[in-house]
Structures are given as C-alpha cells and as structure tokens.
C-alpha cells in the first residue's frame, strides 16, 4: 500500500490499463496545448533572436539587477516593519484593557479588508508623492502587519491553556508568561504561516509598478517599452524573464517555510492554510 491514496483502490491490471490510457490521452492533450502555445508564440516571432537581444545589453542587465535589488530592499523593509507592527497589534489584541483591544481589533479588521493598491495609491498621493518607496513600504506594512497580527494572535491562542495557567500559578507576571512561556512555544507553530505571508509581501511589492517605484516589474515594463526590435516590443520575453525571477524568489521562501515546518515537526503539528 506504499504511496497509495485512500481515494481509489490499488489499481489492478484493468485499472492500470485504464489509467495508462487516460494518462496518455491527457498527456497528449497537454502536449498539444503546449505545442499550440509554442506555435502561437513562435508565429508571433516571440522567439526570434532580435526579441531576446535586449537582454544581452549590459545596460539592461544592470537595470534588471537594480530592479531586483530595489524589490528586495522594499520587501526586506516591509517584512521587518510588518512583523514589528504585527507583533504590536497582536499584543494589543491580547491586552487585558478593553479600549486597547477594541482599537487594535478595529485597526486589524480595517487594514485587512482594504485593497492594498487603494491604500498604496492613497499614501502615495497624499504623503509620499516624492518617495514612492515609502508609500509602497508603509502600505505593505499596514496590510501585511494586520495579517501577521492575526497569525501571531492565533498562534499564541493555540498554545494549550494549561501552559499559561501554570505560568500564572508560579507567580509570573503577564509579560513574563507571554515572553517566557507562550511566545517561544507559539513561534514554532506559526513560523510557516508567517513565512507564507512574507511570500505574499514579496509578491505585492510588484504593486510598485503602479506608483512608479522602480522595482523589478517596473524595470521590466521600462525595458519592454524602450527596446524596439524588428519584431516589435519584447513584452512577452520580458514577462517570461521577470515572472521567472519572481517565481524563483517565492519558491525559495516557500522552501524555507517547508524546511522550518519539517524541522519543527515535533509535538502537536497543525495545518496552516495559504493566504490569498
């Protein structure tokens, strides 16, 4: 039964034959689809050398590199700030004082329901007209910080109640119970979810395109619209290159989350769902 699913029986000879036929048919269909995509790309001259030539220029390569660095800079700043903001909000939501709790809950609910783009645009237009970097980073911080706050709060709430009670019974103060008992245990279970949200943060830095912050996608658009080739503007090659860079970055972060999850698979282990 090794590696078999509970959803279907271990295939016998007939089922194996049927699965094989289905597999071959589906494979042929998918290959046909891939071939069709390849043909239409090729027919539109998207694979001609001229289309990909811009990437050979040193100038373009340097632009991509600076774009990548700017993306990473925005991501790193937003990641740190959102974790700090999230920790503060989570502490506020777990506070014993009702007004603090109410304010923090309102802040979290509001920023979680707001489209990031609307916020970034408003910040950019009102406070950061000359510094799109900070418009982007503050917007990312407000949104992702609120999400991180919920992750941290639910992580702390998920620690068995007896742990906190034992801390109080020993005469620890609330800050001590939090800092020495609850948070260290909660961190392990919430790290995958936190990193999952960091992936979202990384992806959302691409909104910088819209407020003219020169991150990776903005650079991509600049390259595509500024390098005229005999076959037209290289929008598709640029999308392929920039898209792959984003996918690789996100997969690296996800792999880190998986690695941490695997390492911490001791004791209670909960499922975490992906954020959209």
């Amino acid at each position, binding site marked *: 039964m090794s590696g078999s699913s509970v959803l279907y029986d271990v295939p016998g000879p007939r089922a194996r034959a049927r699965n094989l036929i289905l597999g071959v048919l589906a494979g042929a269909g998918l290959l046909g689809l891939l071939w069709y995509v390849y043909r239409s790309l090729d027919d539109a001259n998207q694979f001609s050398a001229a289309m990909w030539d811009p990437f050979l220029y040193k100038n373009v390569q340097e632009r991509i590199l600076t774009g990548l660095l700017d993306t990473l800079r925005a991501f790193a700043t937003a990641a740190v700030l959102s974790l700090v903001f999230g920790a503060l909000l989570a502490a506020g939501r777990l506070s014993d004082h009702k007004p603090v709790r109410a304010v923090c809950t309102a802040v979290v609910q509001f920023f979680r329901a707001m*489209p990031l783009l609307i916020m970034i645009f408003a910040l950019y237009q009102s406070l950061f007209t000359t510094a799109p970097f900070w418009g982007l980073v503050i917007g990312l911080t407000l949104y992702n910080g609120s999400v991180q706050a919920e992750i941290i709060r639910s992580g702390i709430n998920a620690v068995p109640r007896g742990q906190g009670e034992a801390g109080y019974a020993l005469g620890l103060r609330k800050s001590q119970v939090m800092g020495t008992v609850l948070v260290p245990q909660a961190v392990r279970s919430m790290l995958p979810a936190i990193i999952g949200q960091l992936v979202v943060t990384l992806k959302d830095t*691409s909104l910088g395109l819209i407020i003219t912050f020169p991150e990776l996608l903005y650079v991509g658009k600049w390259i595509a619209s500024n390098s005229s080739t005999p076959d037209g503007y290289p*929008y598709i090659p640029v999308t392929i290159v920039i898209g792959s860079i984003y996918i690789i970055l*996100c997969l690296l972060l996800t792999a880190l989350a998986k690695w941490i999850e695997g390492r911490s698979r001791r004791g209670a282990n909960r499922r975490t769902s992906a954020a*959209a």
Partner: protein
Amino acid sequence: MGRLFENGNLALFRDGFLQTVEISALSALFALLLGTLLAAFRVSPVPVLRVFGTVWVNLFRNTPLTVLFFAVTFGLPRLGVHFASTTLAVIALSAYTASFVCEVLRAGINTVPVGQAEAARSLGMTFGQTLTQVVLPQAGRTVLGPMSSVFIALPRNSAIAGAFSVSELYHFQQTMTDLGYGIFLIFFWVALAYLFLSACVALFFRFLETRLAVAR
C-alpha cells in the same frame, strides 16, 4: 462629504462599484470551477494530471497578480488575441484565484476521515464517484472558513485591474485624484465600498456555514 458627488461623479462611482462586483463575481465563478477541477487533478490516479495540477498551482500561486495582469494585458494582444480589458482581468483573476481554491480544497480532502473514502471504495465506487459523491461534499464544508478568506481577498485583488484600464473602483480613485478632489475624501468612499463588499462575502459564507455545517 457631499462635494465629491457633484457633476455626475456619483454615476462614475456607481459604475466603478458595479464593475468591481462584476469582475469579482465572474472570477469567483470561474476560479471555483477551475480550482475544483485542479484539486480533482491533484488527487487523481493519473500521474500526468497530478503533475499538471501541481505545476499550475506552483506557477500561479508564486506569480504576483500584477505580473499576471501585465502578461495578459501586454502579452496576449501580441499573440493576436484581442479581448476587452474586463475579460482579460477575469482571466488573470480566475487563473490566480483557482490555484488558491485548489490548495484549500486539497487540504480539505485530506481532512475527510479515511473511513469515508474506504467505505465508498468498499461499496465499489470508482474514483470519480468517491470524490464527487462522498469526499468533495464533506471537504467543501470543512474548508468553508479558509475558502471564505480566498473569496474575501478576490474583490480586494480585483483592484489591480483598475491599473490595467478596467474602470472599476481603483480607477475611480485615480480619476477623482486627477480631478483634484481631496485624497482622503475619495479614500473614505472607496474604502467604504470595499468594506461593504468584503462584509457581504463574509456574511454569505457565514450563512453557508450555518446551513451546511457538519457536526463531527
């Protein structure tokens, strides 16, 4: 507060709101169908389909939505595919959201007790029957919570469409800003509209949860 809605701006606001609702609803429908299909692929006994599902999910979950919008807006016309910008937005949003729906459903399929699928199999049900008649109905109910956050995120994500020439709420915000109205006033109304939308989706899912909840 009333100054914003002079000279037919209210009509613009209404049109933007309806456009947001339209692309969100259409994308939700397609994402749900496609996501369910992908989830079925990912647990199916045919390896080729499993690989296809995995590749799709990893590809679209890790691509920023802005890049997807960029790809459909600037890429497809160069292949001779010309759609209205709303259609392009629905394509990008559904392809993106479907990958999240698929992952949520797959997690749900894994939480259905093993005995259910075993019982179905011992009755002689095929994979298709087991999945559609026994496992998926139960999985769908258990994942209503995570599913609601995917669909609450959808109208929010649809704001990006406004930056790619769909005249919805973000587009309204942009237009009004260009006309010189106060940014906080515009933000207030647009924020209100989005809060209303996400509250509606949340209420809908809460209603579904009370109707469909399974005691276990």
